[in-house]
């Protein structure tokens, strides 16, 4: 078959995959609707003081967005969460890869990771405030500390589980360390990194709010603190919806397409040979 046909085939495959993706998007939407229905149900049962209905929350959020007051808060929070996430992702993936390659490094790192993973953010808060002040630094640091162990452990395990046979191939053909990383380790490790990244992304979103609640004056967390102190449950839920909505957007616009791209070889490699 000619080279053109090969390219045509790739296009067909990609289209088929996208079609599949979109089709299944309905499944995702359906499940979100189910979630909203459960929320509605609970809200009806308990009354608006405890849990406002989705409608009320969305309406309040609409109001907040319309008068422009919500955008900056959302942007600030998203900025902090993404910064902390990106940091933990970069540092965690790299150190995890390094620890996965060397058994000694991994044994040395493990207890520290456990300590970091299990240390409640409250223990860090004062140090973070001291080091980074009341600006972005503290929430970013808090997010970083919370997400780092998750990413690290994933990367380490991924590296450790690389097939020894492929490692030998890399050695045999004299791949440079950089090529080994990009062409041999990473493609395998990403399949471990992705669940870790997804978990860390969710984590960063929720931790940033906790940190903002405690330490800053702006962002969704601070706004949440205000609406909570006014016992304004509709506004509280509106902020939470804004938060989760941003997270969903980031995940489905950023992480999911990336994942599908990087892992596409699995799709085409799944049928029997």
């Amino acid at each position, binding site marked *: 078959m000619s080279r053109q046909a090969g390219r045509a085939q790739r296009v067909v495959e990609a289209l088929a995959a996208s079609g599949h993706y979109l089709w299944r998007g309905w499944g995702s939407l359906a499940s979100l609707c189910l979630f909203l229905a459960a929320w509605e149900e609970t809200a009806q049962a308990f009354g608006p003081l405890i849990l406002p209905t989705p409608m009320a929350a969305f309406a309040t959020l609409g109001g907040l967005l319309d008068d422009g007051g919500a955008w900056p808060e959302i942007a600030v929070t998203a900025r902090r969460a993404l910064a902390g996430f990106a940091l933990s992702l970069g540092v965690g993936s790299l150190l995890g890869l390094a620890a996965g390659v060397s058994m000694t490094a991994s044994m040395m790192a493990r207890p520290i990771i456990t300590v970091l993973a299990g240390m409640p953010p409250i223990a860090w808060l004062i140090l973070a*405030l*001291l080091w980074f002040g009341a600006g972005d630094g503290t929430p970013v640091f808090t997010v970083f500390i919370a997400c780092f162990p998750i990413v690290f452990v994933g990367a380490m395990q991924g590296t450790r589980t690389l097939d020894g046979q492929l490692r030998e191939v890399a050695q045999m053909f004299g791949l440079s360390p950089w090529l080994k990383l990009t062409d041999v380790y990473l493609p395998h490790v990403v399949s471990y990194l992705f669940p870790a990244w997804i978990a860390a992304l969710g984590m960063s979103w929720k931790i940033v709010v906790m940190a903002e609640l405690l330490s800053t004056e702006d962002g969704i967390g601070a706004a949440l603190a205000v609406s909570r102190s006014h016992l304004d449950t509709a506004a509280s839920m509106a902020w939470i919806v804004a938060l989760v909505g941003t997270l969903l957007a980031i995940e489905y616009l950023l992480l999911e397409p990336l994942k599908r791209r990087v892992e596409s070889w699995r799709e085409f490699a799944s049928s029997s040979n």
Partner: protein
Amino acid sequence: AGKLPLLVLSGPPASVSTPLIHMVETGALQAVADKVEFRPWKDPDQLRLMALGKQADFVAMPTNVAANLHNRGVPLRLINVSTWGVLWMVSRDAGAKTLADFRGKEIAMPFRADMPDIVFELLARRQGLDAKKDFKLRYVASPLDAMQLLVTRRVDHALLAEPAVSMALRKTQSFPLSLIAPDLHRSVDLQQEWGRLFKRETRIPQAGIVALGAAAADPALQAAVLAAYARSLAWCQQNPLQCGAMVAKRIDLLSPEAVADSLAVSQMRSLPTAEARAELEFFLGQLHAANPALIGGKLPGPAFYAR
């Protein structure tokens, strides 16, 4: 001394900070500093940082916390006691008159082992009750959670401090005079109980202003702040609504009406430490007897009190 370039005031989102905010808003300290700022503190961590980092010159805080910090070696002086009565029971039951009326009931209590809890315990013991056995205390993490439990009818009674009481009453439209039957009531005044049971004045020296760092060694500055604080407090008590608006602008957590309501009922009076010392020592002594950790293990020495 010359004029300071920057003077930082700080306080929690509570009644004691109200005059501080007014001082900043009205430029009451223009004479002593070029720039005056207010920075709220929300939790003990931020307070610790301020105590350490010289990030603030004058900080409003509960008197027991001030004693605690002093005992932990922080160079500070208490320059006044301004908050004398902010503790109330809030209840769904309009009839309760003394703590004994809550016997056997469930009460939401913010901050376990903190000052309100200890005061409650002291008062209960004074009338022959055991706080642990005769009441069902439900500890929550913050006044907010207590309010939420009250409003959502998960508990019927709570021990709250102003302005949380006013916030809760406003939220349920129970205050000041609602057309429909009020839902929640400002019930037993713990200050009254204190006076009645300990046979003292009906007030408790709960919070005041502390001078930190360089300010702790500057009596002239302390005097200036003290005077301005007293003037601002007086203005606020006369103009509660305007004052409330000022505060709410700086501290989102509070609403103007609640601040105004709170000003109307709280016992706020700026007494220099020298005048309050006897009462304060009695109060700290009581706390120390109940739980020494509350004030850092021992009664503060004379260096704690500003002259």
